[in-house]
């Protein structure tokens, strides 16, 4: 019925579901970030390691690597989404 207040139990259930979703979303982002870091380190860090700092070339390699990584995320996401429908 419109205007009616949800019970406290309902509110708690909604809050718990929201927290669970937020946690899963966060875990997903952390794991995505970790794969990006590992992949772009593999691709862009010059070996043998001469210094700890990043050179200009390494920095722009990382920027391009990240940009391409997002594009792959988008393509794969589209294809997986298409299949699920």
């Amino acid at each position, binding site marked *: 019925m419109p205007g009616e207040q949800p019970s406290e139990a309902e509110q708690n259930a909604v809050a718990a579901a929201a927290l669970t979703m937020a946690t899963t979303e966060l875990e997903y982002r952390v794991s995505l970030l970790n794969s990006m870091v590992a992949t772009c380190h593999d691709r862009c860090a010059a070996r043998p390691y001469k210094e700890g700092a990043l050179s200009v070339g390494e920095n722009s390699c990382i920027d391009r690597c990240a940009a391409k990584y997002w594009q*792959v995320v988008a393509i794969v996401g589209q294809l997986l989404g298409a299949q699920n429908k």
Partner: protein
Amino acid sequence: LEQMQVRDSLKMYNSLVERCFKECVEDMRSKALTGKEEQCVAKCCEKFMHVTARVGMRFQEFFTQMEQQAAQQAAAAQGGK
């Protein structure tokens, strides 16, 4: 349990992205995927989904068979009493 499924599919999503990036993206001299890289990623992803479906089918068969054998053995053990 549903939560577990969501998590598993996000994990699979991430690992598929990582795999297809590694297999398809070759040069880091441009900010945008080349046409060739883009096509490779799409095919890599499709192929992987087909492999998943086929292996999943065999997987299902195997577990079904194993459970049937276990049931038969249980029945045989009961009959032998």
